[in-house]
């Protein structure tokens, strides 16, 4: 079969009923040493991405119901978060769960900052109090500063030459606090627009004590910190400036705003005769569609995120380009049972089992949409335990066993469907007693092809194999770092969503079998089904490429999942961007010239 004339004919289940909704990004923090970024979303979950792995999503820490993360900060490789709950939470990144939690004693926390030695963090609270915590060993409450009127929405810590000053952005003013005394030293007042309060959403400080603030008027102001005077104002944004960040060498500053624009401020020579410097602003990109809530700079990349749930990574050095890290989780939200035409959809607090529709086998020349002989059907909704979120789920190939893991542990059920092909099949679900009710939560799980064993990657980094018939459990491997386990098997062509580049929605999960050797992600073995229209990522060497025939199909956009059933049909799950955007709040309206 020659490649040029080869037209692959494939029956595709085009699934568009998975109502996946990504969550708004609240804040981003970066760890310069390990070049990891932590992203918190509106549902309180925290994702960790690694720059050196091409922005791969390394883990997701579920927040649980009602959790909120308003601010994140890395300290000595540890991650701390503050939120509406009023607690500073330290995370255990091994176990992927919150470890310690200490109350601020001053209401909800809006912002966090740290000193230059990385041993203290300060939190700004609703009550107008700056609270210090010691993180040199364990997270410990240190003390609170004098209370001020109005909430503190942003903090920055100036810690140079023995001087230790915390700058807090509040309503209508910016204050400087002496860390030694806990008292305010000076106050910088902002103007008001239309007699409305000016909220200082973000503040940052350079080593030469230039304070940069962004406020609700859309103005970015540069201040001389020593004299508490304005240096320069930029009225470049049309709405509230929500986030600011500085580059490493502090010659560049960046701002993000409700008007979805990102601006870059560069410190330039005013003329080439004197040493006089001045800040110059320039637009960076307009890729966001909604408010830009958070910005972070690491290693020449500017990471921005906001209400539109996408994470954009702008490369600032060398060839400039902007990367979109789609808000699609690394692990599968979708599982199919290969033999029984079932699909398992994982939502944040429940699971759904659907029977896919079916059609008559088309004629040889038939193209396009086939008329359905049987419509799709929702068979089952399985809720997680109260206050719990579903972490992972799986269904066996025969469709008789399904399991999921939430924050408390793993649960496995047997699924029996009577009169499978009828319009109203009878569905019954029974908890499998052979799996212990007290197993720890898992990150990934999969059934062996015959459904006899369950393979689970535990939070502790252990791989356990449970025999479902007799309940015997075998621990396969244990690794201290344990956060890269990929499941798969050579026989069953089990698809694994593997972190090949950013999990962009456009890039389909690859239908290849990959077994990872260790952290460097060298594939040990893989198989590709030949001449079946598979999608192979480029730029990765998979050994002898000539062995495989790869075809790329651009018909699907925003593909979340693709896999083959045992009878050779492709199940493609698509989530159109427009539908995801429909659920977002409206973006900031801007008048465009020539557009009514």
């Amino acid at each position, binding site marked *: 079969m020659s490649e040029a004339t080869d037209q692959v004919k494939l029956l595709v289940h085009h699934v568009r009923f998975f109502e996946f909704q990504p969550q708004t990004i609240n804040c981003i923090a970066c760890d310069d040493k390990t070049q990891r970024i932590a992203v918190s979303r509106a549902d309180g979950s925290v994702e960790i991405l690694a720059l050196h792995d091409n922005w791969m999503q390394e883990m997701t820490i579920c927040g649980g119901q009602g959790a909120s993360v308003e601010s994140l900060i890395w300290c000595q490789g540890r991650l701390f978060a503050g939120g509406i709950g009023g607690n500073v939470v330290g995370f255990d990144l091994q176990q992927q769960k919150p470890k310690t939690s200490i109350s601020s004693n001053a209401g909800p926390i809006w912002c966090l900052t740290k000193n230059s030695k990385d041993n203290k963090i300060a939190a700004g609270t609703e009550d107008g109090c700056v609270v210090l915590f010691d993180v040199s060993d364990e997270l410990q409450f240190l003390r609170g500063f004098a209370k001020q009127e109005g909430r503190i929405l942003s903090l920055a810590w100036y810690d140079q030459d023995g001087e230790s000053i915390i700058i807090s952005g509040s309503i209508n003013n910016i204050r400087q606090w002496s860390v030694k005394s806990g008292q305010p030293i000076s106050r910088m007042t902002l103007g008001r627009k239309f007699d409305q309060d000016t909220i200082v959403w973000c503040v940052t400080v350079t080593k030469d004590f230039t304070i940069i603030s962004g406020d609700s008027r859309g103005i970015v102001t540069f201040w001389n910190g020593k004299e508490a005077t304005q240096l*320069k*104002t930029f*009225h*470049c944004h049309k709405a509230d400036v929500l986030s600011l960040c500085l580059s490493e060498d502090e010659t560049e500053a960046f701002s993000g705003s409700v008007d979805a624009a990102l601006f*870059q401020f*560069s410190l*330039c*020579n*005013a*003329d*080439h005769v004197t040493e006089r410097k001045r800040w*110059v*602003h*320039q*637009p960076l990109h307009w890729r966001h569609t909604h408010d830009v809530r958070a910005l972070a700079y690491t290693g020449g990349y500017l990471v921005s995120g906001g209400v539109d749930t996408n994470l954009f990574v702008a490369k600032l050095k060398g060839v*400039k380009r902007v990367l979109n890290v789609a808000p699609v989780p690394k692990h599968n939200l979708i599982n199919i049972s290969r033999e029984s035409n079932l699909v398992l959809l994982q939502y944040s607090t429940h699971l759904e089992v659907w029977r896919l529709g079916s059609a008559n086998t088309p004629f040889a020349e038939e193209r396009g949409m086939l008329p359905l002989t049987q419509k799709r059907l929702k068979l089952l909704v399985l809720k997680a335990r109260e206050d719990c979120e579903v972490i992972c789920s799986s269904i066996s190939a025969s469709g008789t066993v399904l399991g999921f893991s939430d924050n408390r542990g793993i649960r496995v059920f047997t699924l029996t469907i009577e009169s499978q092909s009828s319009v109203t099949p009878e569905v019954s679900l029974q908890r499998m007693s052979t799996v212990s009710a007290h197993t720890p939560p898992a990150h990934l799980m999969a059934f062996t092809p015959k459904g006899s064993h369950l393979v689970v990657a535990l939070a502790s980094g252990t791989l356990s194999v449970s025999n479902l018939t007799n309940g015997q459990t075998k621990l396969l491997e244990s690794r201290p770092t344990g956060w890269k386990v990929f499941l798969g098997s050579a026989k069953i062509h089990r698809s694994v969503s593997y972190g090949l580049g950013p999990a962009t929605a456009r890039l389909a999960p690859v239908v290849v079998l990959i077994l990872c050797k260790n952290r460097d992600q060298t594939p040990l073995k893989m198989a590709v089904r030949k001449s079946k229209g598979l999608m192979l990522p480029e730029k990765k060497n998979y050994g002898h490429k000539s062995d495989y025939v790869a075809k790329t199909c651009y018909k699907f956009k925003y593909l979340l999942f693709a896999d083959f059933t045992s009878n050779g049909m492709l199940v493609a799950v698509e989530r159109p961007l427009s539908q995801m955007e429909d659920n977002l709040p409206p973006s900031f309206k801007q008048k465009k*010239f*020539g557009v009514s």
Partner: protein
Amino acid sequence: MALIPSLQAGSQFGPAQFSHDSRFLFTCCGSVVKVFNTSNGECVNELQGHTKQVTGVMLNKGNVLQKDCVAAGIRNKLSIYSMKTGKTKIMHDTDKFNRTKAVTCVACHPTESCVAAGLENGRILLWYNFLTNSAPAMSTLHWHSLAVTCLSFTPDGSCMLSGGHECVLVRWQMGSQNNRDFKPRMGAPLCKVQSSPDGTLYAVNTGDNVIQLLDIGLRVLIVYRGLTRCSFDAQSPIPCGLVYDPRSRTLVTNGLPGHLQFYSLALNKQLYNLDIVGQNYISPENIDRPTVVTEVTSVAVSHDGQWVATFEVWDDRIFSPEMRLKFWMYNSEAQTYTLNTRVEDPHEERITKMLFRPPSPNKTSSEQTPCLVTVGQDSCFKLWILLDDTDIYRKNVRWDCDFVGFYRGLQGFGADFSSDGSSLAVAFEHLLTVWDPDNCVVRTTLSNGLLPKEDIRHVKFGSHDCRHQLVLATTQHLISWDLLSLSIIWSMEEQTSILIKDPVSDLMAAVSSNNFFVFRPSSHTKLYKHENVSSSEILDAVFAPDARSSDLLDLGWPGNSQVYFYNAEQQLITLDSSSHQQDSSKKTKIAQNLPQSARKSFLAESVSRETQQTSTKDTMRRTAGQETVLTNLLQSNEPVSLYCGKYLNHLLVKKKHQKRTASHAINDDSESEPDEAAEEDSSSESEEETSGPPSKRARSVDDNNADDMDKLLSKPLDWVQWCSSLSLK
């Protein structure tokens, strides 16, 4: 005597340049450099010497401003050449240049290292940090929706001026770029903008050949107008042709879109603009698809200049066209035209020819009924007459249609009244009909049987001695008919594109393919012939009665009229004798009108005032003397003590001084006086010529006084003592 074509007007103003003290504006205009005064808008001098087009003016700035770098935009790249290091840096970041948008203009910041580049898509990019090795920073300013055509920084670098096709001048504050000021409705797209060295004045060149001078409050102070160029339709810039207005002695033609301009030939400047359609010009959204404007396509001026008829069309070829005939009456009190009658859709199609009936010599002016004939493309002509429209509220007149004439359903083309207004000739394709305009009957029909089926393009009655003769221009021939015998006098083969007649003599002239010739209807001999009058196609020509060429009367041609041509390059060309051309050049008046400082100006003015005292006849130009002395003094920065004495002296010892200079002054003035009296109502040019000698003398006196002053300044200044010493003298 040889006549050579010379450019009368229509040269485009080049970019304006201010003098160091911002008091004068230099601009190239054709082959001369014009010097304008920025305080009163007068053209004070024309610097001649070039024989071809002057392309640019640049003052030798010497050490006033040392430029550090030169920037040039080439397509989508910006190259910056550093004068100090000799390096060239080329910016071609395609991403930041908005995907290969061409750079249309560049400007360098006067004090800081910043270069501004205007782009095709209306953005202005400001580049910083380009001389260092790190990545240059660029910020964008965006207000213009169409291409930016001009950019300029003010000398102190605090503001930037930009302009484009939107006819709006934008001033950007460099510190806070959201603060910008606008000067909208500049009339035409902006071509060039320049700030004066002291930063108090902005000169803006607009596409209609105008330089506007604005102050820092963006108020228009002075407008220097040349012959307005119609930059909006390059194919037919003057659809209504050239018409001579005898009352104001001006040429009437199209100006700005929807306007008529009245261009004075004697003063060689535009007298005024008459807004016909009353619609503001709106720049298009896309420069390749210009908006359709209402155009004035036909104009007629009555013989006493009392009435002007205009015909305007708006036709976008999608909707049905809008056509309007308007009658304007001259209001001698307001010194302007006021709209009298407005007729919607006067014809079903466009009007091709329109003219007023000349007054009959047999009737008194009160018996005359003004009458207009319009010939349309709907194969009929209409006669419009003035009716009494007086009601209980006011006394009024209005125009109305009196008669609709047509002939065998043929298409009408040209029309002309005989010189006494008793006959009207209308051409219908190949036939010519002669009508009685009073009774509206066909008198006779003429058909040139020899030359069948050639459409008649132009019809002209002869005048004076040839008033019974009629000249027809068909597509291929020029034919002269005798209306008494109804026979052809002569005919010749000539593809005539323009046929005109002299209002003050029996001469006629025609233009065929850039060749111009003069003839009489009575004979087919060409009195004068000139080939290749203009380098480009001649669009229209007109005779203008002018006393300037009276010395050429004996030739028979040129007579009392000067002929003017308008070519496709939008230039007004006249035929002139070479000697006359030399004479007509303006005399230098630099000494009088180009004072270098307040001190000089005061001294010069005081002397010219003294000479005025001696002359019995004051010309209008000189009366402003005393005021200007005072205003000059008040505005100058030099200490008042320097002038106090001189000024007092000037008031005190007037009579004595007069006597002192009398012997010198009276001679000159007595010579110039009779000349001025004689040519009082002639062109102002002769007046200026005579003013040459006194100004020379004024300069010498001025120099003496300056020496006096210098001597005084070397001593400790006690001005009272000095005054008394002077008065003792």
